[in-house]
């Protein structure tokens, strides 16, 4: 039970850390100064949320590890984030599509997680939800503006949606950890939010005048530690400093 709870917390925390790290890659490179600030703000929100969760996981584990050990000293296969979170930024349209697909899930998920029997998780969810409410507004508005924008922005947005579509099913697909935690009254029933998820995604894509891909999104594995090659590169950058200079502080 305890190990399953820790795994469950990693599933939540790793999504946030990895996506936060991806977003922070835009720092200093975004198409506009204002977007630079917006994306890094969201990155900071997500990384902040992951810290609460890592601290909780470290406390449950009781082996003296800290939130930093969780973030900086685990290898790829120990990460439990969904494959969507680790997909590269590519361009602004990809970044927005990835964020939108994730935010819709994250929003629905946290609205359920606040009812968790685990009081610590419920409290973290409550706090996170305040930030996520804004994230989903930001990314949805951008999907609509780019999709229903110019010919170029529409084409780029459509490509991003088509390419990332395969990865969006995993978020609302239960794995063993999800099932165990649901049975304990701790976790969220992903089957319950799956319908609402696809409904919301399709509603916004339609408003953005984008085509909705028809195939069933099939990619999964991240939640069980099976990742794409992208995660290793991301972790290299994220963890380099602590690996090269163990325990370094500033």
């Amino acid at each position, binding site marked *: 039970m305890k190990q399953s709870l820790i795994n469950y917390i990693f599933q939540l925390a790793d999504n946030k850390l990895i996506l936060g790290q991806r977003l922070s890659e835009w720092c200093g490179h975004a198409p*506009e100064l*204002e977007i630079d600030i*917006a994306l890094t703000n969201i990155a900071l929100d997500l990384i902040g949320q992951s810290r609460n969760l890592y601290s909780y996981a470290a406390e449950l584990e009781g082996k003296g590890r800290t939130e930093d050990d969780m973030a900086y000293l685990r290898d790829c296969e120990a990460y439990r984030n969904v494959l969507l979170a680790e997909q590269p930024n590519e361009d602004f349209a990809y970044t927005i599509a990835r964020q939108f697909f994730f935010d819709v899930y994250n929003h629905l998920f946290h609205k359920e997680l606040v009812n968790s029997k685990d009081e610590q998780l419920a409290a973290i969810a409550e706090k996170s939800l305040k930030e996520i409410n804004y994230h989903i507004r930001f990314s949805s508005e951008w999907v609509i*503006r780019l999709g229903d924008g110019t010919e170029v922005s529409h084409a780029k947005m459509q490509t991003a949606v088509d390419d990332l579509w395969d990865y969006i099913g995993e978020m609302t697909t239960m794995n063993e950890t999800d099932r165990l935690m649901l049975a304990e009254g701790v976790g969220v029933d992903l089957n319950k939010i799956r319908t609402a998820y696809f409904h919301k995604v399709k509603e916004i894509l339609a408003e953005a005048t984008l085509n909705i891909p028809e195939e069933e999104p099939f990619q999964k594995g991240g939640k069980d530690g099976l990742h794409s090659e992208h995660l290793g590169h991301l972790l290299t950058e994220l963890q380099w400093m602590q690996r090269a200079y163990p325990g370094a502080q500033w």
Partner: protein
Amino acid sequence: MDKKEWPLWEIFIRSKSGLSHKHAGSLHAADAEMAIEHARDVYTRRNEGVSIWVVKSSEVIASDPEDEYMFESAKTKIYRHPTFYDIPEEVGHM
């Protein structure tokens, strides 16, 4: 690549209820709603505000800095400052 600049917006922030909106600065945004979102991120992330106004910079009508008569006559009327009255000590700090 042809890159059109986003229009410029003037941002006004009300720091708490009861106070007036104050000009905080300006930023670029694709449209009015986005200007509010950008203003939220740029000017209120340290809890500086409870309300945001955005105004398209091109809609602002400004006085002409070259207009010498605009402020000239007020310069010599220092008696318009309320510093010429004797305030009884009991009133305290005003």
